[in-house]
């Protein structure tokens, strides 16, 4: 399935302390209806040319609900008009801070087939919210009101929690707080990614992230029927214990030919971060088809990276199949090129070896799929 990350707007009302978007100059545009039309034209073209394929269209931002319900209604109309023979193979998803969610979105989200909303939340005071002081109380009230509305209308919801330095003080409290929302979807625990010196006060090291996960893993493991969908724990159970294969994009090693990030002006890139950093730029959707973009030769360097690091940085690593060197963009941010592993690999391996395996009593047995030498 091809994943379109649709940055329909770069405006955002969250004002998160750790977010790159708020620190970038010259950002904040929204996708015109003309570009939006082009998105659906290209989607239809791609699906017609690839009859067995599906497309996931992830509404992202910025804050995508700032565009208002009318924008999504127009998107649905465009899909009806331009994708009449392919629309059953288009799946919509959305990542939103929810604070702008109102009754007016309910019907159009149902029309688009959105049954569950992805969001994020931070109980730490003043990490997000309006104004220079980040009025988190006002923000949280809007969020909770929206959650109530989301649940009342039968939508599911899942959450990303960004682990910062402030999270490290009381990992168990953070875990209980977030799981007490009784999310119908998953809870993803991701480390904050800080690339400047200004906000180092909230950055966490891979080692600190391991300790954070390690502090809460026993709570989850002992009650995993109560807290079913907490990541990265659940996917590790799937891969290590259940013999399945479930890895996030950063660990799968297979993002190369699947993702397209579309900026408000129609410019494409590999993902949100590569777009932010001006890397892996694949041209504008006015000029190129999704097939062309998905097979852009620049992507080959991501494919080749796997071979390079398997015999380089990751040679001999026993958890290679669970990580594949991690996100190439992490490697670029540290080394200036893709041919290295992510520094977060150490967190992955450290957590597995120091916490997951001893506590679960199950040791990861590699399947031998493309093992590093």
């Amino acid at each position, binding site marked *: 399935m091809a994943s379109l990350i649709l940055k329909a707007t770069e405006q955002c009302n969250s004002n998160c302390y750790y977010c790159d978007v708020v620190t970038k100059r010259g950002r904040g545009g929204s996708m015109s209806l003309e570009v939006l039309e082009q998105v659906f034209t290209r989607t239809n073209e791609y699906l017609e040319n690839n009859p067995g394929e599906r497309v996931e269209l992830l509404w992202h931002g910025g804050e995508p609900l700032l565009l208002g319900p009318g924008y999504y209604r127009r998107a649905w109309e465009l899909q009806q008009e331009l994708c009449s023979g392919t629309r059953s193979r288009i799946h919509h998803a959305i990542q939103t801070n929810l604070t702008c969610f109102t009754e007016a979105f309910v019907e159009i989200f149902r029309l688009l087939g959105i049954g569950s909303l992805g969001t994020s939340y931070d109980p730490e005071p003043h990490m997000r919210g309006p104004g220079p002081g980040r009025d988190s109380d006002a923000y*949280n009230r809007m969020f909770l009101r929206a959650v109530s509305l989301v649940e009342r209308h039968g939508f599911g919801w899942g959450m990303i929690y960004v682990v910062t330095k402030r999270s490290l003080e009381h990992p168990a409290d953070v875990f209980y707080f977030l799981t007490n929302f009784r999310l119908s979807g998953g809870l993803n625990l991701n480390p904050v990614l800080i690339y400047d010196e200004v906000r180092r006060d909230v950055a966490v090291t891979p080692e600190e992230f391991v300790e954070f996960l390690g502090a809460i893993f026993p709570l989850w493991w002992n009650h995993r029927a109560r807290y079913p969908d907490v990541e990265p724990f659940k996917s590790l159970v799937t891969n290590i214990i259940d013999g399945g294969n479930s890895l996030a994009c950063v660990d799968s090693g297979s993002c190369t030919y699947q993702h397209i990030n579309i900026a408000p002006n129609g410019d494409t890139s590999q993902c949100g971060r590569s777009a932010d950093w001006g890397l892996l730029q694949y041209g504008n959707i006015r000029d190129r088809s999704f097939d062309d973009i998905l097979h852009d030769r620049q992507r080959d360097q991501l494919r080749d990276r796997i071979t390079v690091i398997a015999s380089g940085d990751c040679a001999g690593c026993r958890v290679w199949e669970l990580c594949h060197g991690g996100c190439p963009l992490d490697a670029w941010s540290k080394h200036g090129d893709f041919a290295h592993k992510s520094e977060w690999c150490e967190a992955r391996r450290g957590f597995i070896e120091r916490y997951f395996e001893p506590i679960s009593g199950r040791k990861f047995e590699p399947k031998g799929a493309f093992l590093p030498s």
Partner: protein
Amino acid sequence: MGHHIIVCPADAALLNRLGGRAVVLRLTSLEDLDRAVGDARQAGALLHCAAVELRHPLGLLTLEERWKDIPIALAVPSVGRLRDVVGLMPLIRQMNIRIGLPADSAENLTGLRILASWGVACTATPGSGPIPWDRFSDLATYALFGLVPHGPVEPFDHLAKHYAANARTDFRGVWFEDPTRFVHMDASGRFAFSPAELAAGEFAGLTPDEVDRIDDSDFYRNRLESWRAVFLEKDGCASCPGWRICLGAFQNTARTEPRCRDAFGGLLDEIERHQASARKGRRELWQA
């Protein structure tokens, strides 16, 4: 007609406005029981139970055989002398009665356990003082896992039967304080979702008809959602492992007496264990 059960003073004039509705009659004396039940029947109200709150220990009460068929929630401050209670037991066992004791003393928690062991249905009520949480937890363990047959002990029995991981289970219904089930009426005929809200003037309605239409009111919807406010506080009840079953029932005292956290965290574990073992069924021993 609404679905809420109306908790009201046992006043004939008030009851006359509640014909056809389910009611809990609030009484402070057993002497008024016959009259109150008669008034409710006369008014055509459906008696859910009579909630009788007394100031005397259980052992000092005089119970009448004619009350056998009246559903009664009896709240007393203590058990009193066990030898006195033993004398009441033959009749209590025939009655449709639950006996509530405030959980704010170790003696009462022991008293609840003794009553339960005699087959009496009991309820641990909040009381006005600090709860000895360790003893409270012991009572929960006994109620859920005691192998010798005993009477149900609330709120543990309610939680064991109704707790679900993906739904809200408000055990305060055992004290008539679940807003999805009960509304409280004062002597002036006004309605709120708890005695405290009545006292604070947070009225859900002013007439029985308004209560009938309460599902459509913003006030009701907001009240049902009011539990979410706990998530505005980073270090409050929302970060408690037992939140899923407690729902902040003790949030007013949790800051000064945080041991409720361990008690409800442990209780949640026990509820889940109890439900899991109920699903598995009882172990069959070999037979010769």
